[in-house]
């Protein structure tokens, strides 16, 4: 009954306001609408009330009030996530950490920074300019996404190929656990004694608690960086080059692939001089000490030519390098020029199978009469096929979802996994059993239950469950008024 729902949310709001201040609680229609969705294509989420705490104590207070009212809570960073991890189900308390955005401490000697979870990824690296250090994880959304969100999703980015994903760079994390208690997991240096609870927490997608302070490792800036742009007349040759580079014993700092559709979409604003007639380009970044970098540049160029590269261009200066990367990092935005919507997948496959899988993905899209654009972290086999479409076109969603599912199935068939960096959220729960047996999932549930015995932290996410998420149904069945 709507009036009991409204009344109970009023009482909840009153207690939250008393706990953290009325200016930190938002319950108006526009706020609830804004926080009902994230960067994913999932619609139909419903927030009960939104909190914007400013401290660990206030986060803990929000959790305690939520629990006292029998409500779940959903942690949220900038809301750039792509798998629906921050989409609220059944009127939970949304706890946004965006107002906790201070860089608390930078220890240059020990190469550690303590930050609040709402610090924007790129802001930390900007803050570190001049210290000779940077924060290595660099998701494409780094201008907007927060470090708290990076921790929740164990985010990646192009440079994780050599430097590792977020987990590798998180030394310790202070968390508000789902029971409202505060604990510090991990150590500033090395490993904490006992179980690696830090490692278990990172990538928990907000189902294990809320990070309130994070100690990140800082990486020394490489003395030498060379960026290569290779172009190919077939996408298969580009994919083969990726495998051949790795097989040659070279792990580049980044190794990215963009196909012709993407190149044509990004060149007008990036002005990087990407060849518009190439079937695919590879961006290869090599960094380190000068002697090794120049040997690797030569080796990569030789491997690429053997695999059929038409040209091998080495960025002459920082400006050229920045333009090459601008196109890559702006790729998702540029897609809007082609069609208004896109559905982005994030599977990982063995990097020796790239050529055949990319061909397969293109065939799947063609069969469903869809445009697919490929721009991805080729070096670690992390595909990002973008199915672009106009959601107003009748019947298009069914085709998009069917093609998406086939891409996931193809990836798993060749020995791949569901997600490399975007997480499972709501979106890929239904595919978990493609990869994991009941026993595998039961073991994962043990971990989740240990952190959250009562199931109040971001319920419905990650693990498949019989329960549905309020108005957001399983993706294949799209209810009235909800579009994915």
């Amino acid at each position, binding site marked *: 009954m709507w009036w009991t729902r409204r009344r109970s949310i009023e009482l909840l709001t009153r207690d939250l306001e008393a706990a953290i201040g009325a200016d930190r609680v938002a319950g108006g229609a526009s706020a609830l609408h804004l926080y009902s969705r994230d960067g994913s294509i999932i619609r139909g989420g419903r927030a009960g009330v939104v909190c914007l705490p400013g401290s660990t104590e206030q986060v803990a207070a929000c959790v305690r009030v939520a629990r006292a009212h029998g409500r779940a809570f959903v942690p949220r960073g900038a809301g750039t996530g792509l798998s629906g991890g921050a989409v609220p189900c059944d009127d939970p308390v949304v706890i946004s950490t965006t107002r906790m955005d201070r860089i608390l401490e930078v220890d240059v000697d*020990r190469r550690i920074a303590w930050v609040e979870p709402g610090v924007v990824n790129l802001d930390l690296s900007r803050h570190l300019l001049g210290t000779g250090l940077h924060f290595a994880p660099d998701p494409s959304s780094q201008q907007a996404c927060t470090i708290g969100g990076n921790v929740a999703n*164990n985010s*990646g980015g192009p440079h*994780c190929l050599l430097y590792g*994903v977020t*987990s590798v760079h998180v030394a310790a994390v202070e968390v508000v656990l789902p029971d409202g*208690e505060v*604990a510090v997991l991990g150590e500033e240096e*090395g*490993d904490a*004694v*006992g*179980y*690696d*609870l*830090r*490692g*278990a927490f*990172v990538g*928990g997608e907000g189902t294990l608690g809320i990070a309130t302070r994070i100690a990140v490792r800082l990486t020394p800036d*490489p*003395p030498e960086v060379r960026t290569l742009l290779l172009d190919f007349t077939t996408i298969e040759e580009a994919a083969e080059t990726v*495998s*051949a580079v*790795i097989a040659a*014993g*070279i*792990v580049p700092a980044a190794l990215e692939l963009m196909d012709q559709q993407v190149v044509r979409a990004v060149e007008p604003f990036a002005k990087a001089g990407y060849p518009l007639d190439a079937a695919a380009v590879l961006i290869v970044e090599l960094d380190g*000490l*000068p*002697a*090794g970098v120049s*040997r690797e540049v030569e080796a990569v160029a030789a491997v690429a030519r053997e695999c059929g590269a038409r040209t091998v261009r080495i960025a002459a200066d920082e400006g050229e390098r920045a333009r090459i990367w601008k196109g890559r990092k702006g790729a998702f935005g540029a897609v809007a020029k082609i069609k208004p919507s896109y559905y982005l997948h994030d599977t*990982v496959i063995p990097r*020796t199978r790239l050529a055949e899988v990319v061909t397969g993905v293109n065939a799947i899209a063609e069969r469903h009469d869809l445009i697919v654009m490929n721009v991805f972290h080729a070096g*670690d*086999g992390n595909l990002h096929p973008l199915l672009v479409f106009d959601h107003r076109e009748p019947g298009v969603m069914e085709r998009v979802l069917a093609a998406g599912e086939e891409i996931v199935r193809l990836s798993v068939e060749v*020995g*791949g*996994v*569901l*997600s*490399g*960096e*975007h997480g*499972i959220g709501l979106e890929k729960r239904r595919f*978990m059993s493609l990869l*994991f*047996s009941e*026993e595998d999932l039961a*073991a*994962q549930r*043990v*971990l989740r*239950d*240990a*952190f959250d*015995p009562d199931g109040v932290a971001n319920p419905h996410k*990650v*693990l498949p469950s019989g329960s549905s998420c309020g108005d957001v149904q399983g993706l294949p069945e799209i209810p009235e008024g909800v579009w994915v």
Partner: protein
Amino acid sequence: MGVSGLADFRDEVGHSGPVCVRGGGTRWELGGPPAGGSREVRAPSGVVAFDPAEMTVVVGAGTPLADLAGVLAEHRQEVALEGPSGATVGGVLAVGRSSLRRPRIGAVRDALLQADCVGAAGALFTAGGPTVKNVTGYDLCRLLVGSLGTLALIGQVILRTWPSPERMLWMQGSVTPEAVRNMCFRPSSVLWDGQRVSVCLEGYDGDVEAEAAALGSHLGLEVVAAAPALPPHRSRWTGRLPEGSLLEVGTGVVHGLVEVEAGMPGPGVVTLAARIRTGFDPDGRLNPGRDPYRIAA
């Protein structure tokens, strides 16, 4: 080995009674010896598959580390696992101690991509996945590393490999670790005894030679034949460097003549750890007597 080896291992572990898993037995007492009456089991041994172009290797947990290293070395690759002579892959993962070269090759905990395990109820389950990048579900692999076999018994794993360096050398001199770290790009190891620093340089010939030359001419460091001998006990760095001990700069580990006991973790962590252990092993049959919280570092 492979599937049948795993099934045999599962059957050997069985459904009931306390079991402890034996690797090379090189650090048997660590975290407390297994309780009396525990049945000893061994994980399958052997390299199942190695694809140098993928930079991953599938290997039985009972495989001696030296055997694995030999197979990888044929393709100039290595893994971030290191242990005493005779140690096994599973043993090194269960203990979770990282190599002295951690700043270059990474922590043991980051090397494990997938683990096929036998759980307390005697069923096989898989944690993680085979690819070098993966956020599909919870990161159980991180939890298994360093758990001393108290959550599940690891039968077979997929590890991430890395290219081996072309050149490695150790240097020593009487300067501060900061001076060395400021002059080198990501040295593989920096050790400090309070007076002298030892540094390990690895990489391409030209780069190692250039950094060694700089360390020699600017800081007076000299090339030495090998890494300094490590004192016998590991503890966590507490900001004090007792006489005769050696600090691994940046990794929080001190090698000393005596063991400094680890401080107790906070109450939240203790509760969480206990819930995790009983969740995975409600009847306490996996390596009873062992406790990862009794390892000093």
